[in-house]
């Protein structure tokens, strides 16, 4: 699995990236390719350009500037030489490739009837590298378990983009599905987990088989729209815990409500900084108002690492872990 994402770049860019120190390469979160502009990487919350002669630089003038040929090759590689299979993805503006890496695209939008039908002249790529950080959920999970009833509490994970929501969800899925004898907390039964993986990011499925370890009792609906997928899961796969990424639309909220009333625990993530902010959003506001969620986990990250805050349903703080307090690598959203 180590750095398999390097293979999706054309030779010129791949050679520049490979020349970087291995320790840095392991921390890279995003590689940004913009045609005719400097090649950029983001790592550990910072950014840098890559110099044409190799190495890092902050001066745009010294940086390597990918040309038309690079952009063309990159698009060809990430679409498996078959852009026509990606029409739906182009409408949404991103492609997820096997391994769970997500590539955001920018170009010129082609409209049809007022909505985006297609992207053409694609010249901007944001390659977000998915990483598995086993154990990232260790300190959070004990607060999400309702020991008296042997279940997981309804949880919403909140953070701005790129702070580690998906990584957190992935590790939660693995631990919940695997059960455990979490030491002082006593043993936890292994539960059936259902992941609705609309963007193929949580499990990074390749032909339906997860590339990441998401636990032994986990079912994945890959590429399925969340609202519909959650309903399908409830009806046919009888999960104990439903996991979904980035809920936000009103229909997602309706599906979450449905799941909650069906006695299924929901662990979901959403963009946001504070619970109070969330209450004002049209889709999720209702869920917060009605105190549907029993736990909120708020992630915040700095160069030192990732910190958590866990709040209960009444928004009272339960746990605060500052960045850098736990050992382990950086997160990726």
């Amino acid at each position: 699995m180590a750095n398999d994402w390097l293979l999706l770049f054309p030779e010129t860019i791949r050679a520049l990236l490979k020349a970087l120190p291995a320790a840095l390469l392991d921390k890279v979160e995003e590689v940004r390719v913009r045609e005719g502009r400097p090649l950029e990487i983001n790592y550990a919350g910072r950014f840098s350009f890559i110099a044409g002669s190799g190495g890092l630089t902050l001066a745009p003038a010294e940086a390597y500037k990918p040309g038309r040929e690079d952009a063309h090759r990159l698009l060809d590689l990430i679409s498996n030489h078959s852009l026509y299979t990606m029409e739906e993805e182009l409408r949404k503006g991103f492609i997820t490739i096997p391994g769970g890496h997500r590539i955001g695209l920018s170009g010129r939008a082609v409209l049809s009837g007022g909505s985006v039908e297609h992207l053409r002249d694609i010249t901007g790529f944001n390659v977000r590298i998915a990483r598995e950080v086993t154990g990232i959920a260790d300190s959070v999970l004990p607060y999400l378990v309702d020991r008296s009833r042997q279940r997981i509490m309804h949880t919403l994970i909140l953070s701005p983009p790129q702070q580690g929501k998906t990584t957190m969800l992935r590790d939660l899925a693995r631990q919940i599905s695997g059960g455990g004898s979490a030491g002082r907390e006593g043993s936890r039964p292994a539960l059936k987990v259902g992941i609705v993986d609309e963007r193929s990011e949580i499990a990074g499925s390749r032909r339906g088989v997860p590339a990441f370890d998401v636990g032994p009792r986990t079912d994945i609906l890959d590429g399925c729209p969340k609202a519909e997928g959650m309903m399908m899961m409830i009806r046919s796969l009888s999960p104990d815990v439903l996991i979904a990424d980035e809920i936000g639309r009103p229909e997602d909220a309706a599906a979450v409500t449905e799941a909650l009333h069906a006695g299924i625990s929901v662990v979901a993530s959403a963009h946001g900084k504070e619970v109070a902010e969330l209450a004002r959003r049209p889709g999720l506001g209702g869920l917060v108002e009605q105190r549907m969620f029993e736990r909120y986990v708020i992630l915040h990250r700095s160069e030192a690492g990732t910190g958590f805050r866990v709040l209960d349903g009444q928004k009272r703080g339960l746990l605060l872990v500052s960045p850098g307090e736990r050992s382990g690598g950086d997160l990726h959203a």
Partner: protein
Amino acid sequence: MLKLFGAVIVILAGTLAGFSRAAQYADRPRHIRGLIAALQRLETEIKYGYTPLPEALRRIGEQSKEPLKALFLEAAREMSPPLDRTPEAAFAKAMDDHWRAASLKAAEREILRQLSCTLGTSDRMDQGQHIGLALQQLKQEEAVAREDQGKYEKMSKSLGLLLGALIVILIF
């Protein structure tokens, strides 16, 4: 006696050359037809099957007869990891390696080369249009090839024999 034997060999060689020339005239429309069928299948795979290009070419290759089989399989292999070449480069390589085996001419090669530049780079509708255009051009070539076959196939055969006879006469 030896002279007679030599004469027979010369006439035989001439006849064979004529026949092989005639076979080329007969094979060309057949191979173009095969190419047309292959591209029609490709169109279906792209428009209705959403099959990725390397996979589609592999399937078509397996269903086609030689020499097109080797051509498509090679192109599919070039496009797959670890080589991962662009469709354009993959087809160029495959045509370099296998074009000789087919009785196809430069016109068909140019049609396929132009198509390979656009394959996989646009949405399904656009892909359909490009393949449709290539099909139309191939059908024209096929008509020309059939005409040539009618005109020259028999003629090549008799010309071979006659050329052999002419050499024999000149030598004697």
